[in-house]
């Protein structure tokens, strides 16, 4: 879950990290007032979640409050990687002597958090890693020992920084490590971390990402920042259809029937579980099928959840048929899914035999499930038909339509 720059800066400020003065503006007047209050030259920055705003021209510099207001109007409508700006940040422009880079993230191989530090900030860090590896340090740290400034010192010292710069940087990097663990972040990055001409260091731009699983543990902070539960903060905002899918899944805690992602095809998918859904989605696309959605069912969802998911998918404009497919199931009951899907079709006013292109869920209680499907004339298959073949049968039916 990504944070906007202004939210990240609010969290940096909470941890006592040094920042330039800044204000969020929602109108040209607010932009002018912000620049006035800050005094002197300002930077006008579009607030978007994706990178590349500088290249897109969505970061401009102003010498006067009037210019700040004008730039506000220029920057706001610029679309960055398909994303429109939420607001605009007006920030004090500081005289910079040097730019540094620091981030904390997880190393899945070592299973530890790692501090990445470079004295070549402001540019793409992957480029630094390739062209100047000696200017980028990687320092892992323990999650069970008390957090220690020693780690920050080693990370900074490893690229050759010493003297008062080292001593001024240590508390900033240490606080970033704290922030990373305190808020269950998956990424805490400052780029650039600027050394000013007067020798002080400030955070110029930062990027924080919180682990979705931990959102519940940080409700107070998210409330303070005004981030609601329906803001998924993935690569793109959720669609109405996806939010409706999330509501279906939230009705009870039994199993999963959700994680809906919208696509624009004509074949509705009721698929599972986690890995099975990925496999089946690929299989449909490979065989020329056009999925209307991605979703996951698993963990033995209640019949009503499956029913409501079926109804939701059938209600989507352009959906001609649905395919109900899973890998061999261990703890999901085939008969319950079969009942739920058929009920969903009937309640949506559709004939299950007509609208269900294929039902392929082998495993526990499959005989009971297949009986129900046979009664309603639905085409089904067991494990002797592979996931790929089942997906192919569904695609063929749609093509024949």
């Amino acid at each position, binding site marked *: 879950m990504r944070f906007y720059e202004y939210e990240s800066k609010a969290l940096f400020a909470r941890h006592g990290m040094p920042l330039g003065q800044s204000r969020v503006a929602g109108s040209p007047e607010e932009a002018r007032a912000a620049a006035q209050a800050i005094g002197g030259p300002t930077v006008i920055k579009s607030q978007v979640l994706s990178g590349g705003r500088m290249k897109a021209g969505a970061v401009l510099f102003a010498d006067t409050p009037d210019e700040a207001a004008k730039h506000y109007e220029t920057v706001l409508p610029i679309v960055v990687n398909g994303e429109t700006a939420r607001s605009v940040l007006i920030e004090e422009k500081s005289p910079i002597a040097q730019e540094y880079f620091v981030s904390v993230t997880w190393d899945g191989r070592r299973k530890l958090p790692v501090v990445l530090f470079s004295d070549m900030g402001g540019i793409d860090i992957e480029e630094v890693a390739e062209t100047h590896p000696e200017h980028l340090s990687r320092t892992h740290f323990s999650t069970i020992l008390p957090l220690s400034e020693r780690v920050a010192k080693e990370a900074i010292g490893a690229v050759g920084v010493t003297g008062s710069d080292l001593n001024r940087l240590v508390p900033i990097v240490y606080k970033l490590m704290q922030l990373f663990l305190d808020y269950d972040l998956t990424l805490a990055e400052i780029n650039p971390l600027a050394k000013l001409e007067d020798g002080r260091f400030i955070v110029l731009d930062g990027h924080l990402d919180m682990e979705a699983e931990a959102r519940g543990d940080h409700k107070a902070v998210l409330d303070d920042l005004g981030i609601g539960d329906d803001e998924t903060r993935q690569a793109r905002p959720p669609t109405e259809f996806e939010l409706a899918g999330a509501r279906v899944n939230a009705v009870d805690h039994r199993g999963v029937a959700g994680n809906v992602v919208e696509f624009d095809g004509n074949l509705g998918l009721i698929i599972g579980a986690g890995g*099975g859904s990925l496999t089946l989605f690929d299989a449909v696309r490979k065989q020329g099928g056009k999925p209307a959605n991605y979703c996951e069912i698993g963990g033995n969802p209640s019949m009503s959840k499956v029913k409501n998911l079926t109804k939701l998918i059938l209600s989507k404009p352009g959906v001609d048929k649905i395919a109900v497919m899973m890998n061999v199931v261990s703890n999901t009951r085939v008969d319950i899914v079969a009942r739920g899907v058929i009920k969903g079709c009937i309640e949506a006013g559709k004939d299950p035999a007509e609208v269900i292109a294929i039902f392929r869920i082998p495993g526990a209680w499959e005989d009971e499930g297949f009986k129900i499907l046979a009664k309603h004339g639905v085409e089904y298959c067991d494990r002797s038909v*592979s996931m790929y073949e089942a997906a192919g049968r569904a695609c063929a039916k749609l093509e024949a339509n």
Partner: protein
Amino acid sequence: MSILITADTSFIVQGITGREAVNLTRENLDYGAKIIGGVTPGRAGRDIYGVPVYDCVRDIVAKHGQPDGSIVSVPPKFTRDAVFEALENGIKTIVIVTENIPRAQVAQMVELAELRGARIIGPNCLGIISPGEAKMGGVGGPAANTRQAYSKGPIGVMSRSGGMTTEIASTLTGAGLGQSTCVSIGGDAIIGTSYAELMPFFEADPETRAIAIYSEPGGRMEAELAEWVTKNASRLPIVAFMAGRFMDEMKGMRFGHAGTIVEGKEDTTAEKIERMEAAGISVAERIEEIPALIRTKLAEKSVEV
């Protein structure tokens, strides 16, 4: 032979009175597991299908001796504590079934496990099965269904998806290839044991003659496996199935499991496939191609199955 668990492995179930844990206790017992006790704080004195329930792991150790393993099936908020309890009571193989644990907590469990010389499988997994011997976790479901999908034989299976572990085993069984041990390693970004970390166990198991893996986008685990195979001149041919190829075009979106997200080039299926193939790992387009690919690779090495 098998790896990690055999018919003689004794284990406990932490959170044994929970709905899911009750089911898997029965399923494991039916499949022949030696479950010597269960833990749910405040429920001491009860039993679940004849397995006595205690308040603490310590009480089981005192009464029944040292268990080899534990299945942890408690809510995410309590998982770290349960795993620490198992580790501090000498348990060496821990299967964490629980999903949605923030990774900082997983990292803490893994770090302590390393200090204690113990191994964690999971979290967010269905556990381990050595077909015909025992299983530890929900893998395969009820014993009758488990026997239908899994059979004893020469193939080791590792999978980031619990459900796909059974799909692959079922496909292998259907093609006459049994399995030595199948491990559902878990779908999270940080897990206790990766493919590469399991390889030495399979390598040392004389009955394992080939490996099948299920993999997906996100993380560096496939690259780690490719490196391991190259560096250690593994005797075991490996066939991988790569799911989620559509995600390569959908950077930043999460599908399937918590660990499944494309953030950089190294996370993509295209990059993973390239690395694995360069290391001599065959990558199947469909699950049903796995048995034939395994047979071909074994025939090249003149290994009989």
